[in-house]
């Protein structure tokens, strides 16, 4: 369902409500949401909540914070309505927004640490496994991305992931891996270019 392509049906959407929102593309659902039909948000949530939550959890390493951020992302998406279907897929919009907010929160942790000069133990709860029905929705895209990542040299993948998920600067990565800055920059760029090459089908 999540892999349903955006189509030119977006501009020709009939005004009457569809009998089944599940059948609409992301762009069609978004148009419904903008016109005040908030049930569309439920379908969008069903399609993308795992993507958003998994990314928030990977970056923040804290289920409660990931849950809060997921809520913030979907409510921001609904309230501000800044997504433009003509500029990219909804999944990419949501993952970019989630990544950006996650990194902001990671950085603000340092503020809290310094300000209070002590840390409490954060209570961790076990994440819930996905239901079979939920697991079906993003599988196609996930498999393609996982396969593409496997085709990238490990060194390049590692730099790409450190940069993306942990928000580390190139010089921070160079320091952490004890590798020259120039090498890190090259690995990051080549990793991204190779990933795009392997994901042409998804990007178009």
């Amino acid at each position, binding site marked *: 369902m999540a892999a349903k392509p955006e189509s030119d049906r977006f501009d020709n959407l009939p005004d009457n409500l569809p009998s089944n929102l599940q059948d609409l593309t992301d762009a069609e659902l978004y148009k419904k949401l903008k016109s005040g039909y*908030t049930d569309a948000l439920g379908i969008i949530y069903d399609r993308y909540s795992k993507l958003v939550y998994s990314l928030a959890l990977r970056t923040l390493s804290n289920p409660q914070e990931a849950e809060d951020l997921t809520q913030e992302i979907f409510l921001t998406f609904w309230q501000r309505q800044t997504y433009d279907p003509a500029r990219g897929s909804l999944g990419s919009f949501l993952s970019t927004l989630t990544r950006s907010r996650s990194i902001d929160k990671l950085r603000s942790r340092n503020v809290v640490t310094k300000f209070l000069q002590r840390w409490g133990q954060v209570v961790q709860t076990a994440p819930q496994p996905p239901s079979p029905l939920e697991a079906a929705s993003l599988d196609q895209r996930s498999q393609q991305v996982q396969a593409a990542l496997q085709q990238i040299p490990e060194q390049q993948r590692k730099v790409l992931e450190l940069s993306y998920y942990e928000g580390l600067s190139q010089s921070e990565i160079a320091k952490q891996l004890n590798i020259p800055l120039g090498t890190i920059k090259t690995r990051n760029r080549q990793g991204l270019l190779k990933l795009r090459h392997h994901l042409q089908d998804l990007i178009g």
Partner: protein
Amino acid sequence: MTSPLPQDLEELIAGYVLGNLDPQEVQKVEQLLAENPDLIAEVNGLQETLALLPYGLPKISPPTHLRTAILSSTAFDSSPEIKAKIKTNSIPLGWTLILVGIPTLLAIFFGGESDRLRQDLVTAQSQIVQQKDAIAMLQQSSTSLVALKGMDMASSASGNMVMTPGEPQAVLVLRNLPTLPEGQVYYLWAVVGDKKLPFGSFKAGSHGNVVSKFAIPNSENIEALIITVEASPSATEPAGPMVMTSGA
């Protein structure tokens, strides 16, 4: 799309998307983009690639109550078309029922009443959520309070900033703060050296009470908190009088 670009230009654009270029290189790429709009597709394709990265993560479902909480939040700011739909929404359970569901049921019950009643319910719901945040933070043993004292026009005001390690947001709880005339807002700032970083604006409710949640500004050396009166809710530096301070 297979890129026909020379390798060095391809890498330069990749670096641009990754944000790892030096200022001269950024300038060079932006000039190239201005001169050759076809390159913008290259940038977009790489940005889209980067945004696909999280699809490679093991997928984990958020807790099931989150969906209900999010959709309940949308029930209060919707068109007339949606107000009719509220009746068919599933009823939240547990705490969500108490905190969010009761206003929902009231909204259904008073469905034909005025917008003002609906607005009151929205305000009440918002206050309940904020108070829930404050209570949740206070219940954590590691929570700290930063006391704030009023001065001048707000000399009887007092309260605390509630902060919890690991929590990127903090809750401001104040009382006896005078209600401001239309067009003015209170503004909370973090003092860092000789700079003031904005938390955000807020208003005092009835009886001078405030419960507001703010994202903590991105700075590592906050020395004190101050509250000023500002004419703009999007102020970037304090221009109005200071009315409360943590005094730290």
